[in-house]
């Protein structure tokens, strides 16, 4: 599913990321194309290892935001470990966007309006 404001995983990710990046006024539709390099902050000019570590740091933050603040539940067979490693892989890939990260959040978590 593409970046969609009716998708709770996407909407919750957008809200947390604009809060974290201090860009609270950024509309949902624009934020979908934000690059992951921008989200992890320290990616510019960094080595591959440094960027991967920074991506993992950000992934732990998003995982906690979804599970503790938005109280989303892990999908069957998904855990904190699967969530963090899947998000780290996307965040460490500088060609990916927040919309790509939204897909991972949607895969890993079940939100209130989902069966």
């Amino acid at each position: 599913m593409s970046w969609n404001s009716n998708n709770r995983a996407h909407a919750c990710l957008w809200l947390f990321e604009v809060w974290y990046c201090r860009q609270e006024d950024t509309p949902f539709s624009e934020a979908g194309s934000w690059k992951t390099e921008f989200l992890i902050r320290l990616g510019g000019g960094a080595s591959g290892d440094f960027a991967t570590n920074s991506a993992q740091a950000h992934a732990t933050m998003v995982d906690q935001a979804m599970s503790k603040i938005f109280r989303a539940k892990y999908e069957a067979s998904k855990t904190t470990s699967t969530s963090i490693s899947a998000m780290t892989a996307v965040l460490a890939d500088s060609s990916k966007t927040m919309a790509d990260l939204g897909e991972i959040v949607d895969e890993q978590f079940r939100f209130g309006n989902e069966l």
Partner: protein
Amino acid sequence: MKKYFGICTAILLASANAYAADEPLSPGFNPFSTLIAEEKENCPETPGVQILCAPLLDQTSGLLSQTVTPGQALDSLKMSARTSISNTDFPNDKTKRSAANSALTPSLPLSLEFKDIDRENSASVIGLEYNIDYTIEPPQPLQGLNYNLNFKSEGTITKTAAENPRNFIDSKLEFSGYRHSMFGSLTDDEGETLQALATEAASGNESARITALDLIAKTLAPLNGYYFISYGVEAGIESDQEFNFTNKKLGGYLFGKYDFWNRRTLLGRLGVTTGLRLGVQNIDPSDETPRAIAGDNSDYMRASAEAALAVPLGSMGEHPLVFVANYRAYREISASNTVKSANLDRYLLRTFALQGPYGMYVSFSSGRQPFDLTSEDTVEIGLKWYPWSP
């Protein structure tokens, strides 16, 4: 397998005896076609036999339609059996369905596969490739503390050590982990409300956006910032089958990151993020690195340090902008005089960048990386653009 070789031989001999023993088999005469078809259907599931059974029966069927002597037919059957056995499918099938594999696979993350290995200027050989990948980690992190222990080993075994062009053993034991700040938690009902607010806010509802952002800020207010620490150590060895060439691998790293969130402090108001990574690593250089060209191609230990700082600069037009500074240093431990005199034992690289959310950047780099021969200053102005449609 012997049974099916016997059946094929019996069919051929019976066919031949129907005529004269020294006469060629009659082309087109195949009174055993039904028997061959039935036997083919019944090719057993016994490891390895199925792979031989069908080709042997097909070969028999083919021979019955050709003009060959019984002796030629038997030779042809032997050749067919030999070809099937030398094919890696046969031992792979036998291994896959062996009792040993069934017993080991559920408890050990082990895979075994026979491979036909090409060698330069020599005939190819069959080798057994093995791979073990085993990880121990807690099912759920404990209070932000997570770790895992991974053992990975792979390699190839051939009948004669000298014939093995690949690594006999390439094993690595790695321990890594991380810990981080713990977020406060909302109740399920509050979380459900926040989810609904987020959806409304994403659809353009301004008051829902303000309420939702306020709730996030209040929940995370007790944290002055967010720390993340990760670490890892690895030790490994690789060797050929004769143990003439062995290479030890050793490495480790420590990474830390801190986001300043407390807006009552200057760094928090600015939204500064800092990071530091220290590492030590065993390097096995290729022949084309500056170090090898200078005359030292031995493997070596290298220490590295990398620090970064990011500061949001507000917006340029409607686009947010972040200033990122990155500083990298590499130093070879116990470098040889050859390397030192060629000035290839230390490297520094500084990069300052203005980073936008859509890949737009301006960066200035000064210094060199371990693959560079000379230092230079570089200014890059670029736009990275990746097609994306909402």
